[in-house]
């Protein structure tokens, strides 16, 4: 099993969710996060006082899938979240050792 973690632009969330559903992904976890990469923060000005916020708001999506689906899911997210401008985000893929469905006690692939 793989955990796919994607950091994307907030307004791309719906596009990504629809694309993943169409690709057969059954569920995901979404978190509002802040951070920075190559895209630097914005400057805010309040009555002449300037504040540079170096953390940019992003959305983090986490999806756990079978190994065989990983490359397709990564490709789907990459295409759906793409705008071509700086700050589009990143996708990480990691191994998952175990999964359990709490309601039934099913484990691993059957729990996904």
């Amino acid at each position, binding site marked *: 099993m793989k955990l796919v973690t994607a950091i994307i632009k907030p307004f791309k969330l719906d596009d990504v969710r629809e694309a993943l559903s169409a690709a057969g992904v059954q569920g995901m976890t979404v978190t509002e996060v802040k951070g920075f990469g190559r895209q630097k923060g914005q400057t805010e000005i*309040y009555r*002449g006082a300037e504040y540079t916020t170096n953390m940019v708001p992003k959305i983090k999506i986490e999806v756990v899938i079978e190994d065989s689906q990983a490359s397709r899911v990564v490709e789907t997210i990459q295409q759906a979240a793409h705008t071509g401008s700086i700050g589009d985000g990143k996708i990480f893929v990691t191994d998952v050792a175990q999964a359990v469905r709490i309601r039934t006690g099913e484990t691993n692939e059957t729990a996904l």
Partner: protein
Amino acid sequence: MSNFKLPGGRALWLALAGGALCIAAPAFATDMIKAPTVEQQALMVNKGDTSWMLVSSALVLMMSVPALALFYGGLVRTKNMLSVLMQVFMIVSIAALVWCCWGYSMAFTSGGTASTAPFVGGFSKALLMGVSGGTYAATFSNNVYLPEFAFVIFQMTFACITPALIVGAFAERVKFSSLMIFVVAWLTIVYFPIAHMVWYWAGPDFLADSVVKDAAGALVSQDAGYLWGMGALDFAGGTVVHINAGIAGLVGCLMIGKRLGYGKEATPPHSLTMTMIGASLLWVGWFGFNAGSNLEANGVTAVAFINTFVATAAAAVSWALIDQVVHGKPSMLGAATGAVAGLVAITPASGYAAPMTSIVLGLIVSPICFFFVSTVKNKLKYDDTLDVFGVHCIGGIVGALGTAIVADPALGGQGVFDYTVFPAGVAAYDMMGQLIIQAKAVGLTLVWSGVGSAVLFFILDKTIGLRPSADAEREGLDISEHGERAYNY
């Protein structure tokens, strides 16, 4: 003869529909009762005036709670939101009590010796002694009276909001208990005397009897506040409220010191939504403040109302334009700040200006205040957290001086009245002379409030202390001073 000028004096002539044309006619004069008795005054009360004053009083209370509290509260960090709300709420409550106990008497009675009487009233009406449903207060027109309680209430709302304005200058870093003691003392030694100096007078039916010639041959009243007698114009409180509170705020922020992390940590407003709601409610409430200050419901009241409306609109537009030019984007906070600056500037001029000169005043005040809050404050590095000095004191000074210009009948202004004669007549208008008088009033207010506030802050600092501990300040005043949070989610 031009020594005595008074806000809204024109009211009488407008109210009498064309009476201005025949004020010199003896037949008209004989209809007026000079120095009426209480029984006669009772017949000179108008239900429309009384209703308007009670509504205005409620509007001015709304300016403090919730308007000012939200305007200020939105601008601080989340951890200090509740402390600002509580400071404003308690100041209003305490000021109301102080007003009834001794404030009204100190501001609006004549007392003490001949040398102190122009500067502060006496205690003859302390605890509202002698004030009842059957006593009356003068307006600006001969033979027009208000129930005295209506006047007490209206003026009470001014005493409530003025000290609340000060807290913005040292928001996020003041000890609540010290602040409450400061407010009681500041009202007593600064606000009540200034209100007395600017607004106390014998009234249009009594003043003529108190007039004597001084050594220079000029007519002076022995029964009027010092600045009023000098001829200073302050329709609704530019000196008494805004300059007074603004300079006290500056002194306070200098003596209390900067917030921890000032200039290093980001301290952006936590909710400009709250600030916009607050600024808008201030705008609405200010109609009670300015138009209500005419003390009657008539043509001059409508003049003050429209002037308040358009000066504010002009200042909001002006600030947004400056933001657009300087920073490339028009900001909501800029528009709200501009609106408040416009309201402050038109306050002393509201009953004297014409709508078009009010617009000019509004357009001018924003760039001046903008310069103070963005450039001067950063250069001099004082931490006036919510720009009480930059907006209220500077805006108040622009308004106080501007009043001398916009009141000129040659510019469509309302001019001034001569109350040394009975009934009151139109006084000649001298713009330069008026400007000098206005400057003196501004200077006296700055010195009186600046020095008085400095003494009070110094004493409090050396006794019970003005600041919470560094840990308490870092944690936020909501938890450390009040044991609550503004938001639990």
